[in-house]
């Protein structure tokens, strides 16, 4: 019981996730600065930003529903932290795993997007409502490719548990090569989920100020931003667990190092995408996702079904 509490709150639970999220945010910002030929922030900048936001006053507009306004950031942060409990950090076993946890994790990762929508909607400001609407429109575009590209390898591995998927692909390494298309698709869909350029349409600074977060300030905004950073880590961990199954057999220190390397490599890849693309318009993004990304995801599904058929005979 004490051990479980320790795991949930300290490591690899809440505290570790917060520290790692801030570190990954620093890696993202520093790497982005280097790519843009700038200097970039010092290592303590994300922590300083968090503390500064937490120390400021929460300004809640008069006409909003206070309960929902304050509830949504908490739910966002809670759901991403919960999602991390089902993913293997090192070794082959996650903290709590059961058959079917990949579905649970995917739904837990959808909850933050819904809270962005609700937070923006309940803010009752024009910019927030437009941003909230765009969040949902974007959800409909990338959610299917994300689900399909994560579930296709699950089909091949014959299990709905993330830990067992990782183990399966570690043992049958060459089968993981058939999932390369899924890796690409899930990276694109993850960019949509995290609302990063080229898909940061719901939070387009030059069009709608800050989208859903326009009316948020102080600790509530700090929770939202922390939730986004943790979501980045959790999404990268998910992709690493499903598509990059190596380094699982070493003991804690080396296995942990492999995990850090995998996750930060995915974060670095997302950063490069952030720097080389412009922001798309919402209709262009939906076009792109449904015309190109979703069919490729279904191709991956087909490939996995075919391979599974061949392998099991």
């Amino acid at each position: 019981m004490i051990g479980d509490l320790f795991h949930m709150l300290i490591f690899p639970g809440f505290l570790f996730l917060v520290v790692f999220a801030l570190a990954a945010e620093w890696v993202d910002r520093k790497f982005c600065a280097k790519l843009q030929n700038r200097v970039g922030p010092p290592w303590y900048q994300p922590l300083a930003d968090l503390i500064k936001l937490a120390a400021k006053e929460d300004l809640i507009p008069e006409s909003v529903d206070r309960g929902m306004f304050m509830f949504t950031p908490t739910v966002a942060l809670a759901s991403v932290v919960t999602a991390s409990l089902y993913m293997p950090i090192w070794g082959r076993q996650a903290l709590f795993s059961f058959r079917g946890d990949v579905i649970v994790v995917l739904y837990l990762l959808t909850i933050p997007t819904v809270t962005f929508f609700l937070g923006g909607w309940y803010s009752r400001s024009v910019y927030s409502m437009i941003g909230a609407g765009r969040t949902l429109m974007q959800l409909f575009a990338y959610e299917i490719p994300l689900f399909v590209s994560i579930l296709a390898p699950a089909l091949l591995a014959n299990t709905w548990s993330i830990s067992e998927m990782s183990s399966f692909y570690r043992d049958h390494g060459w089968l993981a090569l058939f999932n390369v298309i899924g890796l690409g698709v899930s990276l694109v869909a993850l960019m949509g989920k995290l609302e990063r350029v080229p898909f940061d349409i719901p939070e387009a600074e030059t069009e709608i100020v800050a989208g859903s977060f326009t009316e948020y300030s102080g600790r509530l905004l700090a929770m939202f931003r922390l939730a986004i950073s943790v979501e980045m880590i959790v999404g990268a961990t998910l992709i690493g667990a499903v598509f990059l199954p190596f380094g699982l057999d070493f003991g804690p220190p080396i296995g942990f190092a492999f995990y850090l390397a995998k996750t930060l490599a995915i974060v670095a890849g997302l950063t490069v995408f952030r720097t080389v693309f412009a922001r798309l318009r919402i209709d262009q993004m939906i076009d792109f996702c449904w015309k190109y990304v979703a069919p490729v995801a279904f191709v991956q599904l087909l490939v996995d079904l075919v391979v599974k058929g061949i392998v099991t005979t």
Partner: protein
Amino acid sequence: MKRPGRMVREVLDSVFRKAATTRYPYGKYSMPGKFRGKLDFCAEKCIGCRMCMKDCPTNAITIRKVGEKQFEAEIDLARCIYCAQCVDACPKKALEATGDFELAGIDRAKLKVVYRGKPASEPEKKT
């Protein structure tokens, strides 16, 4: 020839280049040669014609008589726009623009600088 991610190569090369930003004020920065910064007034050359006062767009400079053929100048650094028109207007070249641009302060009174000539003893430039 449309290509997504056209900037990738350049962007990845930038990682190995030095940053284009100067870490001012930890890194020193100075403006090129004839930058128009804070003015310098040589009271010995001034003849009190007050052409500089007439031409100053913001009335930043005031020439006062302090003795027989002796003048002092008071320049309000906050009003001055560093155009150096007074430098051009002075027939005796008594004014000159230095390259000093780090003039910020927290006391408005200190921004009025008075330039006096040398009396018999040491020069007294109050800043």
